[in-house]
């Protein structure tokens, strides 16, 4: 007689394995990125509301709590970007004839290098 046993799926599965914890960390960083995008919209709104409003808002942003939040978002954004850049070779394998292009080459070529170039251009644009 068949009587298959179905084992329950643990509710807190995401803490059980290191890989699951790292996965959840990667996914959660998206919330920080999303929150920062909303913040940027608010910033644009304040900019549009005139100089006085914008200057007052900038003053609020200098509050230590705001600085801490910004550092947190920066860490989350770095974690998000780096983990996804490292996954690029898995998602987009490239072949040169019979040989598969080495993973790090793809991660650098399609991820890190454009990232650094764009960052330098933005910093250069802000400073100039």
């Amino acid at each position, binding site marked *: 007689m068949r009587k*298959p*046993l179905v084992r329950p799926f643990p509710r807190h599965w995401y803490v059980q*394995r290191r*890989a699951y914890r790292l996965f959840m960390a990667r996914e959660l960083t998206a919330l920080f990125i999303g929150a920062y995008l909303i913040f940027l919209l608010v910033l644009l709104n304040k900019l549009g509301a005139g100089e006085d409003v914008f200057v007052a808002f900038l003053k609020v942003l200098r509050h230590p709590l705001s600085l801490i939040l910004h550092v947190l978002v920066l860490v989350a954004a770095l974690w998000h970007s780096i983990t996804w850049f490292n996954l690029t070779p*898995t*998602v987009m*394998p490239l072949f040169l004839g019979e040989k598969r292009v080495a993973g790090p080459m793809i991660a650098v070529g399609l991820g890190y290098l454009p990232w650094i170039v764009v960052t330098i251009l933005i910093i250069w644009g802000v400073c100039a």
Partner: protein
Amino acid sequence: MADESTITLEVFRYHPERDSGPTFQSYEVPYHDDWVVLDALNWVKDNVDGTLTYRWSCRMGVCGSCGMMVNGDPKLTCAVFLKDYFPGAIRIEPLVNFPVERDLVIVLDEFMEKLESVKPWIIRDDVNDTSQGEFKQSPAEFALYTQYSMCINCMLCYSACPEIAAVPDFLGPAAIALAHRYNLDSRDQGQDQRREVLGGRDAVWECTFVGECTEVCPKNVDPAGAIQQVKVASTKDWYKRVLMPWGQR
């Protein structure tokens, strides 16, 4: 002090006609540093308890039958050595995310259905007439899919995948990797027949890219990569059909 010449196996037991739930049974097994976990199970079956039930066949990582949870990790028991756990105990359970038939044997029916649904074989519009000669393939065309053809259907990836646990109907890593293998094969013409299964409900879009399937794969198949590539292909395909409907055959 523990006897250094033995190692303890804690083995998951479940008898469908007798038990309402699982129990764990301990066995003291002679320790040899060249023994794998499967050798220890075979020793128990031959010398202590003939009722212990589990699947195995080739003992060399080819048949894919002996996958079990070893101290919580999905492993081929023919490929993990006792010495990697000695002197600690080894806890052996049936692969998780599958119903248990008895002891360490899991129910395969749903997996087999999933596998079959992606038609993992070469599909041709024409009938293969051998008088016309073979279907030729260049080394570069062969290289595109070789990695995904190494799958031995051991199902370790299904045990590593939390999505399978959350959505039991999810097609799963091995089936999608095999579908991808045939889609990438220059001799195959069955992409249209696999499209609906791959891009539809409970298929590639259920995958959240945890990536653990690739980590546990004993044959370096990289099913996580295959799934993401199918997502890219499926997206391109969708845009092509929507933007260029006249391009359809």
